């Protein structure tokens, strides 16, 4: 099949300041104090060219609203003040990561501008700087080349969108991101997941990267033989990397099958004509809400025939995504239209059999042909239909090169055409930074230790199994574990480690919002166990409650759930009550009744009494002579 995958891992750095100003690297939780509206206007480059993607975005005529507050943004984010110098702390972290990955740092770091046209940067570009080249990372005894390690500024955070406006919050703009790009040597989907994980471990070893959702984004470059290079943007979760690769392989393979089918049907690109027909009179009485609302706004309905495409538009490429979906997305992007229908999904959506028949007749479609109709303003309809014809022609060639966006389930949709190569140019407002050999030496002498070394060390220090130690190092809770283990010997490290790894994972699987649990919560819970105020068995229950009541503390969770330990006197009371109600059994069996009585007592006090204490008290009751 010839699968080749390259990864680009992006992760936010936990620096004091943003990359080009002195704002903090935190996200605001307060409402914005300032909103401003801007528009993107393309200009000619030094070579006299206008970036086609920039021109396209401009033609959409959209306004961009930026929201800011004084705590998380300054004039630099607004592009009212030139960038300050490249944040030295971010450069140090990037150099640390470079040395851990055996990459060669640049003598001089040059900041570049990369054209970004979705409005997420106030400048119209993203600043990026190569820090080092040609590293490597061993993953399962295979050497993965690390082509490039860069520092980038994160983009504004999208907080809303409608047809004519997109809204970005400026708190995230300028947060330093490290970008690590591997060579395209990954050969299968699972390997892609493992490489992403291994890179993540190196990053975490620095303890200077941010954690949690939104702090990590993976881009994937995927191609198969005879397919095309597809860039998938914004895979947020590590678990999704291999899934996204698998689905992309499935999509490209299906597109190649469609290509072969079109060729065997002898369909040629020239057969697909921009021959658009007015269909409004044929569907004006349809029950389709989209058609009716388009017509009410003075729009029109037009369609185009796709000769030889009969039955192909309903072919599934990925779960829930058909060739027809791909064509519709393309029309939506280029034509800003929502109302796209194709013949394989009709009758439906309020368009009836009679209308479909009339449209097919008007477009002169035979049984082996397909058609696409669009309802919107005329200008948008024409742009949309042009995009439909172009995408259909590409289906005859096979897989078009595209940049796609990942959905949370690993499927992807068309984002934009692949950008031209010439979208980088120098940032002349920021002077280059020389990287002295002294600086590199100093960083090299103080490199953090790698995860496997840490796992080995904590494994022997706390006497926990190598597997558990490795899981702990891979988890987000390694530091928390150290702090909890320091509480004292009243709490078993292997129990803490199991809770922080396996139990947290299973809670997350059960949709418990474990991300709400902070270090303080976790420490409090284990401290209560260590102090004998609640039982080990109650920890999960308490954590579950705290995750949904994050403003409360562990002690109040214990109260609320009635999981506090019962006192010795009360326990004695429970025991004598149990013994009383089974008096004959106890009298007949004496000390041999211990196991049975133990079960009965524990059923009453589970989670609220230490089993050891229960055994001890039972023994004294059942074997008074042992006393």
């Amino acid at each position, binding site marked *: 099949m010839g699968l080749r995958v390259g990864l680009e891992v992006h992760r936010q750095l936990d620096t004091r300041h943003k990359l080009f100003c002195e704002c903090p690297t935190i996200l605001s939780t307060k409402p914005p104090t300032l909103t401003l509206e801007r528009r993107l206007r393309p200009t000619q480059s030094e070579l006299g060219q206008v970036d086609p993607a920039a021109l396209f975005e401009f033609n959409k005529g959209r306004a961009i609203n930026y929201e*800011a507050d004084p705590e998380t943004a300054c004039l630099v984010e607004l592009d009212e003040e030139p960038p300050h110098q490249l944040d030295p702390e971010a450069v140090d972290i990037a150099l640390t990561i470079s040395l851990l990955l055996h990459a060669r740092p640049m003598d001089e770091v040059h900041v570049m501008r990369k054209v970004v046209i979705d409005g997420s940067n106030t400048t119209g570009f993203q600043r990026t700087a190569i820090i080092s080249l040609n590293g490597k990372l061993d993953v399962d005894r295979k050497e993965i080349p690390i082509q490039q390690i860069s520092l980038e500024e994160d983009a504004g955070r999208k907080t809303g969108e409608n047809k004519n406006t997109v809204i970005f919050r400026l708190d995230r703009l300028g947060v330093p991101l490290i970008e690590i790009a591997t060579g395209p040597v990954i050969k299968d989907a699972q390997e892609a997941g493992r490489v992403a994980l291994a890179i993540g471990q190196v990053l975490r070893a620095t303890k200077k990267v941010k954690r949690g959702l939104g702090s990590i984004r993976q881009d994937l470059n995927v191609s198969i033989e005879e397919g095309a290079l597809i860039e998938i943007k914004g895979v947020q979760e590590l678990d999704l990397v291999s899934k996204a690769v698998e689905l992309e392989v499935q999509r490209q393979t299906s597109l190649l099958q469609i290509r072969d089918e079109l060729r065997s049907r002898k369909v040629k690109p020239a057969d697909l004509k921009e021959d658009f027909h007015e269909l409004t009179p044929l569907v004006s009485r349809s029950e389709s809400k989209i058609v009716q609302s388009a017509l009410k706004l003075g729009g029109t309905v037009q369609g185009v025939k796709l000769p030889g495409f009969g039955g192909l538009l309903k072919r599934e490429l990925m779960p829930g995504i058909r060739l027809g979906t791909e064509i519709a997305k393309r029309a939506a992007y280029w034509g800003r239209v929502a109302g796209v229908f194709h013949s394989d999904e009709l009758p439906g959506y309020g368009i009836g059999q009679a209308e479909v028949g009339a449209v097919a007749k008007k477009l002169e479609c035979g049984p082996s042909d397909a058609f696409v109709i669009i309802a919107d303003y005329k200008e948008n309809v024409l742009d949309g239909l042009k995009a439909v014809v172009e995408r259909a022609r590409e289906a005859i060639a096979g897989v078009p090169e595209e940049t796609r966006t990942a959905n949370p389930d690993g499927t992807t949709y068309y984002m934009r055409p692949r950008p031209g190569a010439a979208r980088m140019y120098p940032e002349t*407002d920021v002077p280059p930074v020389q990287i002295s050999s002294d600086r590199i030496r100093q960083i090299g002498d103080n490199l953090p230790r790698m995860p496997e070394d840490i796992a080995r060390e904590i494994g022997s220090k706390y006497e926990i199994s190598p597997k558990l130690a490795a899981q702990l190092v891979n988890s987000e809770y390694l530091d928390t574990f150290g702090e909890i283990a320091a509480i004292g010997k009243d709490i078993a490290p292997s129990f803490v480690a199991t809770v922080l790894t396996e139990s947290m994972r299973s809670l997350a699987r059960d949709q418990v919002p474990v991300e709400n649990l902070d270090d303080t919560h976790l420490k409090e819970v284990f401290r209560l166990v260590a102090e004998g105020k609640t039982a080990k068995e109650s920890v999960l229950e308490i954590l579950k409650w705290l995750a949904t009541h994050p403003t409360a503390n562990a002690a109040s969770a214990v109260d609320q759930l009635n999981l506090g330990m019962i006192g010795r006197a009360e326990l004695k009371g429970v025991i004598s009550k149990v013994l009383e109600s089974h008096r004959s059994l106890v009298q007949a069996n004496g000390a041999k009744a211990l196991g049975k009585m133990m079960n009965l007592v524990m059923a009453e006090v589970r989670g609220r009494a230490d089993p050891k204490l229960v055994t001890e008290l039972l023994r004294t009751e059942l074997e008074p002579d042992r006393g």
Partner: protein
Amino acid sequence: MSKYCYDSIRNAVKNDVPIFMTSQTIWGRVDMNVYVTGRDLLNLGVVPLEDMIPETALVKLMWVLGQTRSIDKVHGLMLQPIAGEITERTAITEAA
């Protein structure tokens, strides 16, 4: 700043005369990396004073020169915020 001034500036710097750059705008910040002249002046040893306004800079320099005559200390004190006269971040306000 025209190039014919460069020799005088170079001479002054050589003789430990402190030379600073401020902005005439009330909300602005000095950034000498953006244009060639700024970069030339930086190389000659002119010290940019971030967002301090010229009037404040003049009074502050008078005070600083009363504290020390060491050129390094003069530079350091001028860049050290004492009474909110120099800030790292230019705040977003309606006036901006």
